[in-house]
């Protein structure tokens, strides 16, 4: 793999506590002189699975982009704090802002292509990117949102049933809850109790895309066989109403899991952000 890799546990305190988030900064061999790209992975995934093993980091480095990855709390190589506040989406967005600034992102300036920050999210990462873009319009230049939702499937998660299942194996009635928990348990690197804390925190701050809408250009992407593809027009409508330039891309034959590696997805993102 090309480029220099530095991994670090993010140690800047935010509002007095250390978020313990693992940050990776990947430098391109030939820098295109454009702003850094921040990558936000999905629930129960990690920077490695969502962005490195899938070929995204390499694609962006080959395009001369500086790439910043971060593992969400309780995921990948990040810590799994015990306090619920660490998992609140609003708190995570504050942590992301600190990480972006520490990685060298500076507010957008007219005529300076190295200013600002591009953000690519997938699934839960797209929710965070949507809200981050809406609240950080002086920093965020463009957004690419993969497998985005209009509602939050995690907000419907049956925590009580999940905890009962983990305690004594009582089957989970709700199919979506059972699927999410199976996915969360599938990876040894996941801290299952931290992931449940994240779910609980998300339930207290469910996603409402209409509450704050990003104004910057955005590319919405989903697999044709991903039920979330249906949310693209709705999000596009919200964005357009707010004055954003919105492009949509549906990936033929792909679902929520395997859209991630799609070459067409990467090429579209690299070209959309390459301005």
């Amino acid at each position, binding site marked *: 793999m090309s480029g220099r890799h530095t991994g670090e546990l993010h140690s800047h305190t935010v509002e007095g506590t250390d978020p313990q988030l693992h940050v990776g900064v990947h430098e391109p061999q030939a820098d295109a002189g454009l702003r850094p790209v921040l990558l936000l992975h999905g629930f129960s995934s990690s920077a490695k699975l969502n962005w490195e093993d*899938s*070929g995204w980091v*390499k694609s962006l480095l080959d395009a001369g982009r500086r790439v910043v990855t971060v593992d969400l709390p309780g995921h990948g190589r990040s810590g799994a704090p015990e306090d619920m506040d660490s998992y609140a989406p609003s708190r995570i967005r504050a942590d992301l802002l600190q990480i972006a600034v520490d990685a060298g992102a500076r507010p957008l300036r007219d005529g300076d292509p190295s200013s600002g920050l591009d953000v690519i999210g997938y699934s839960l990462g797209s929710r965070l990117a949507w809200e981050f873009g809406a609240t950080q319009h002086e920093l965020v230049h463009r957004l690419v949102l993969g497998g985005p939702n209009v509602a939050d499937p995690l907000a419907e998660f049956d925590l009580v049933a999940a905890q009962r299942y983990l305690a004594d194996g009582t089957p989970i009635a709700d199919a979506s809850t059972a699927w999410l928990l199976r996915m969360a348990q599938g*990876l040894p690197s996941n801290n299952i109790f931290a992931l449940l804390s994240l779910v609980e925190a998300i339930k207290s701050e469910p996603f409402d895309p209409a509450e704050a809408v990003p104004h910057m250009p955005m590319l919405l992407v989903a697999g044709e066989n991903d039920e979330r593809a249906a949310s693209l027009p709705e999000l596009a409508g919200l964005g357009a109403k707010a004055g954003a330039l919105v492009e949509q891309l549906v990936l033929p034959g792909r679902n929520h*899991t*395997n859209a991630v*590696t799609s*070459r067409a997805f990467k090429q579209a993102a690299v070209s959309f952000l390459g301005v």
Partner: protein
Amino acid sequence: MAEISFPLPDLGEGLIEATVLEWLVSPGEQVERNQPLVEVETTKSAVELPSPQAGRVVRIHGRPGDKINVGEPLIVFEVPDNTAGIVGTVPHEDAPKRRVRLSAVLDED
């Protein structure tokens, strides 16, 4: 010229098979080491496999949707005879992170 066959590598986490999603190279094509070859999907995630070898692609195994077991042939390369022997010694690009000083302390045993 010699042919070198590469099997589907061990993808970790006890996975024994993967489904081909899309080939990114085709027979006849010259590829570089680390160039993405194919996208495959396991029960846990989708991954892009980089080429372990530079060479010309002779054959690829599995169409989109086909399952391949770990260890079964994935791709065959044609390489010049004199490079066929070095397979397995993958050069490492990264600079060493840590310098180890070998200071002989002969008196201590």
